[in-house]
């Protein structure tokens, strides 16, 4: 008995270690807060405050390689967007191109990347499901939400399997061929995925009914989520940073040009 309780404690510690010692709900709260405030703050000063704090939050996960890859991909997409905006400004004089004017939208994207990456890199599917249960949502919202989160890795595996099958049959599916033959790609890739999704939904639905999942049913979570002082500290810091960003926006952002808003 003692051995089993000790091993449960060890597993709990190991899971919390893998998740950066923070509860998923606190990371969700930070993501939600950031997504709301980054839209409200339209000045460079406020966005800089948000960006610096969110970058420190992303660094705290210490997944340098994943962070570098994500930033490289974002830099490429931002470069393309800047190039297109510059091209449009050459054709339409009413829309002048200014790097300052693009800074705020780009920083919004970077802030969201900084808060979503720690959530994606540290949280396991089981922890997400437990957190979703902890939100006390109605059954008709909780079950599809849980299925959605649980099904995403399965669907990604299905995509991989279908594309490998197509490779074996001689079809080379890359970005180039997708752009050259979009309908063919849709037919080859999308139709099998649709069939597999429907089959998976049938199987999961039957399994759910056989296990007695229904409205008013009592579910016992596999592992209870624990809200610690670290989570409170993280959420308090996030609220503080958002207040600071809003203050910077109101105090110094009034001189910002309308193009930057």
């Amino acid at each position, binding site marked *: 008995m003692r051995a089993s309780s000790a091993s449960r404690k060890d597993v709990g510690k190991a899971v919390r270690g893998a998740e950066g010692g923070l509860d998923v709900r606190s990371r969700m709260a930070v993501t939600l807060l950031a997504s709301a405030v980054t839209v409200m703050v339209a000045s460079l000063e406020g966005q800089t405050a948000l960006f610096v704090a969110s970058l420190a939050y992303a660094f705290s996960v210490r997944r340098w390689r994943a962070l570098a890859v994500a930033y490289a991909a974002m830099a490429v997409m931002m470069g393309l967007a800047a190039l297109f905006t510059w091209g449009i400004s050459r054709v339409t004089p009413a*829309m002048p191109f200014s790097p300052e004017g693009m800074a705020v939208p780009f920083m919004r994207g970077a802030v969201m990347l900084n808060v979503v990456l720690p959530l994606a890199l540290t949280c396991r599917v089981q922890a997400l499901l437990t957190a979703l249960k902890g939100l006390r949502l109605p059954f008709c919202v909780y079950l599809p939400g849980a299925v959605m989160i649980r099904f995403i890795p399965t669907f990604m595996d299905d995509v991989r399997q279908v594309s490998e099958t197509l490779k074996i049959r001689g079809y080379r599916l890359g*970005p180039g061929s997708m752009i050259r033959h979009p309908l063919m790609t849709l037919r080859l890739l999308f139709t099998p995925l649709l069939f597999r999704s429907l089959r998976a939904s049938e199987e999961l639905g039957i399994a759910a009914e056989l296990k007695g999942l229904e409205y008013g049913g009592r579910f016992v979570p596999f592992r209870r989520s624990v809200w610690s002082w670290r989570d409170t500290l993280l959420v308090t810091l996030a609220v503080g940073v958002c207040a600071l960003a809003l203050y910077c926006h109101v105090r110094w952002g009034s001189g910002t040009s309308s193009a930057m808003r």
Partner: protein
Amino acid sequence: MRHILSSWRARELVVIGVFAAASKVSTLLIALAGGGMNPLSLMGKNLVFTTLLVVMLCKVRRPGTIFLFTVINVIVSMLLLGANVTLLPPMLVGALAAEAVMWPGREAEGVWNGVLGAATFDAVSKLLSLGVSWMFMRENPAMMIMVVPFVAVGYLGSVGGLFSGVKAVKELRHAGIIRQ
């Protein structure tokens, strides 16, 4: 309220969850594979989303399906993907409009009630998204010149998705996966 919440069967809820995941992942993959928002990937993304929506509405024939699907999408997008909160009200209003339009034909068989719901959802949510974009860029309305073609191209994809949805439902019925 309790009756509405408890009337859903687990099997129907699972289908909604699976389709929410499939639509989210496939649209993200198309956007990434297309190297960002070029017109083709924008059309493809909307086409796949609408096709999945039509198939789901034919698989789960119950009032409230599209609204529940949107609510699930909104919750997961907000909590896990950091979605822009301003884009969510247009989706919810679009879902409510689609439910209203589908209500008279709720007992009807066939694919057309689902197609009508998906078409209403796409049209209303895209129109309201344009309104939100205008609100953001009202100081510089010339910027809307860029937004309108993007939304229009996306909507063309959605219209294509209605046709491919009907075709997919026919094939799935033929295969016995969707039953009347």
